[in-house]
């Protein structure tokens, strides 16, 4: 079920009413049923994967906790890791790995064998990617790893673990939660105030506006010009770079907004996933503002165990390369995501080298000033590697970059001027919102709490969706991961 689907307009109030009426185990069972209904709406068999992951990690966590023998603990941890990553490998990466294996076999001269055997395997593996599998496998993995590290005591309440894995607001596209934060909130009903309800509903509506009025319009333009880059002008492709970056940010952060808002309406606090990433003043800061729940997950469970930045400059470079490639590959089974990760690693490494040499300040956590504008503008050019993320293929991405960075000749536009004007207007609004936020000029707006003002705001947001929605309602971009 999609947040922006008609069914969800009926589903969400029903679940919230149930939440208000129930408590304890009955409430957890209600939310589990709602979450499985939400997840299995289009493909009921996906629920089996969810149930498998839940059962595996519930058992593994209890066994790890119960044993003092290092071997047993490690074996159960490995079982959890292998089970979850194995599921991910089969459904998400088997096609890519088999393609690589085929190329390798072809390169060493066993082409005949590779074609017959591997084509069959690829066909067998050609199954639809279950929605959200990358999100909930990482979330559930963190549970067993934290128990293994003795940072968390596992719960014996199966319904709490089942709800932790399946909690519908953040199930299919995050934020990727940690058991230490979410499990206690799910184990007993949280008190919710009128503030929670109002702030949560506002957040949900705001997310829907970001999705329907902004992200979907950008999606229409990007699909058009990037789908056939040969027919688009360099200016349109350049605009496409910006439109896609904002599309990705607004689409994904819209999902996070809706998830956080819905959870808050149940009194549950989810972690923030984005903090205005285009206000970053350097590439390192960018990663503290973009898909925070994934970057912190990779930091805690990959980067730090590899040694982080404590083992010298070269090892730090290597570790950050592994992290960037892992983040790239997490997004999709395609070489273009590896290139995307690699380019971000280059940005990151160059910046670190520059900082080491010049001793430039890191900015992190400091308030903005107009003097930060050049740094923000410079970092904004992180939009360029996004082409590897959004273009249909690597070859499309190369064509787009070649055309954008070659001398611009010929007509400026090949698409209707009106369509380009819509995109420019939306980019202008998004950029203005960033500037207002960066300079903290929206503080008074955020502080408004009167029912009259908030009610009018809600009506305005709904009216904005009614009038300004894009012609093709797209599903959320991160559903494909």
């Amino acid at each position, binding site marked *: 079920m999609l947040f922006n689907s*008609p069914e969800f*307009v009926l589903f969400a109030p029903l679940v919230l009413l149930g939440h208000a009426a129930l408590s304890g185990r009955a409430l957890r069972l209600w939310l589990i049923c709602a979450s499985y209904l939400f997840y299995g709406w289009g493909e009921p068999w996906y629920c089996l994967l969810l149930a498998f992951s839940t059962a595996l990690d519930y058992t593994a966590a209890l066994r790890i906790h119960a044993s003092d023998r290092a071997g047993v603990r490690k074996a159960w941890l490995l079982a959890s890791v292998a089970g979850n990553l194995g599921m991910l490998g089969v459904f998400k990466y088997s096609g890519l790995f088999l393609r690589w294996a085929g190329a390798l076999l072809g390169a060493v001269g066993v082409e005949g064998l590779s074609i017959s055997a591997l084509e069959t395997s690829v066909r067998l593996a050609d199954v639809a990617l279950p929605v959200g599998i990358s999100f909930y496998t990482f979330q559930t993995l963190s549970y067993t790893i934290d128990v293994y590290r003795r940072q968390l005591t596992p719960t014996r309440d199966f319904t709490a673990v089942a709800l932790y894995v399946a909690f519908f607001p953040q199930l299919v596209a995050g934020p990727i939660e940690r058991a230490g934060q979410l499990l206690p909130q799910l184990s007993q009903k949280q008190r919710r105030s*009128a503030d929670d*309800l*109002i702030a949560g*509903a506002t957040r949900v509506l705001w997310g829907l506006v970001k999705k329907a009025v902004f992200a979907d*319009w950008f999606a*229409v333009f990007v*699909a*058009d010009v990037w*789908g056939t880059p040969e027919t688009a002008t360099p200016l349109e492709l350049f605009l496409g770079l910006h439109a896609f970056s904002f599309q990705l940010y607004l689409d994904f952060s819209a999902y996070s907004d809706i998830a956080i808002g819905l959870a808050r309406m149940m009194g549950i606090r989810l972690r923030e996933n984005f903090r205005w990433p285009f206000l970053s003043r350097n590439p390192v800061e960018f990663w503290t503002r973009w898909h925070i729940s994934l970057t912190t997950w990779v930091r805690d469970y990959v980067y730090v165990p590899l040694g982080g930045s404590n083992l010298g400059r070269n090892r730090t470079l290597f570790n950050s390369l592994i992290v960037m490639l892992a983040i790239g590959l997490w997004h999709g089974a395609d070489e273009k995501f590896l290139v995307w990760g690699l380019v971000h690693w280059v940005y990151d490494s160059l910046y670190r080298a520059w900082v080491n040499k010049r001793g430039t300040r890191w900015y992190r956590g400091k308030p903005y000033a107009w003097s930060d504008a050049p740094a923000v503008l410079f970092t904004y050019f992180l939009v360029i590697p996004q082409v590897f993320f959004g273009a249909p293929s690597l070859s499309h991405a190369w064509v787009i970059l070649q055309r954008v960075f070659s001398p611009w000749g010929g007509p400026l536009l090949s698409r*209707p*001027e*009106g*369509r380009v*004007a*819509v*995109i420019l*207007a939306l980019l202008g609004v998004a950029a203005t919102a960033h500037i207002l936020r960066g300079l903290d000029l929206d503080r008074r707006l955020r502080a408004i709490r009167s*029912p*009259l003002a*908030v*009610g*009018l705001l*809600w*009506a*305005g947001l*709904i*009216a904005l969706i*009614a*009038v*300004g929605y894009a*012609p*093709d309602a797209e599903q959320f971009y991160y559903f494909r991961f």
Partner: protein
Amino acid sequence: MRRFLTTLLVAVAALLAAEGLARALPPSTLHCSLTDRNPAVRYGWPGWTAPRDRPAGQRLVVVLSNSQGFAPELEDPSLTWPSRLRRRLLEGGDAAVYNWSLNAARGPELAVLAAQAGRHEPDLVLVVAGSGTFSQAQATWRVGFRANDLRDLLADPAAARRLPEPLIAGLRAQVGLRWTDHVRARSGLVRLRDRLPLLEKGIAQVAQETPEDGGGSGGAGGNTLGAHRGEGAGDALLDALRQAAGAPVLFVGQPLGPGASEADRAARRAFVERTAARWQPDAGASIVDAADAVTPERFLSLTHLDARGHADFAAWLGPRVDDALTR
């Protein structure tokens, strides 16, 4: 909780007020009479074809055709035969021609548009199409309407009740009409979109089709009328169009291009004779064949006319339209 409910109440009241204001506004200025072709091509048909007041005594002809009427190859729309027809009609007094031609239009789309045309109470609905338009299977929204537009038109009871229930039911099943479509079709707020030319231009000629819009062409549930298909279904569809228009209808078998075979001509003749016989008792409906109205050298391609071809066809059409209007 009380604060939340108060906020909710304020929001609902404000939305209702906004909806009331939107409904009270005069009709949109973005309307089919202001230009020669729908600028959105595949989008915005409900707003584009919505009825509006027209000057007393103005004669109105609504043209329903395919790419022969839309003429995508002619940059200047004033060169198309519907425009030339309008100029001819203007010589005899105030007149308007709405060109609702749609590239690759099929029978169900033309029937839905005819139902919409009927709401304008036109003096004539001029349909220019081939005989295959009403009998070849092809998924409706693949080639013409966007699914959302078709949903909007079908959800609009004023248009939908003019069409036979089996056709409506079949089309609704194809596009998957949902309760939100009914809300959207009746919402004054949503109709405010028609007042935003930038938005309309923004969606003009966007993507060709999307997977959401249905399966491949020619799939099951394509150009059907209920459970019927083939020649009989095509006839029923054409009759449904005639009834939905609720106005005199002149069907013109479109000019055949240089690639037309003798079999094509024979099929056209049979179609025209069969339809003429069926429509004979109805004085308000007639059919003529323009198979040879334009010489082959006036075609740019197998089916598309050049500018001179449009002029020739308009000259051929003029007296027949005059005749239908005075009948």
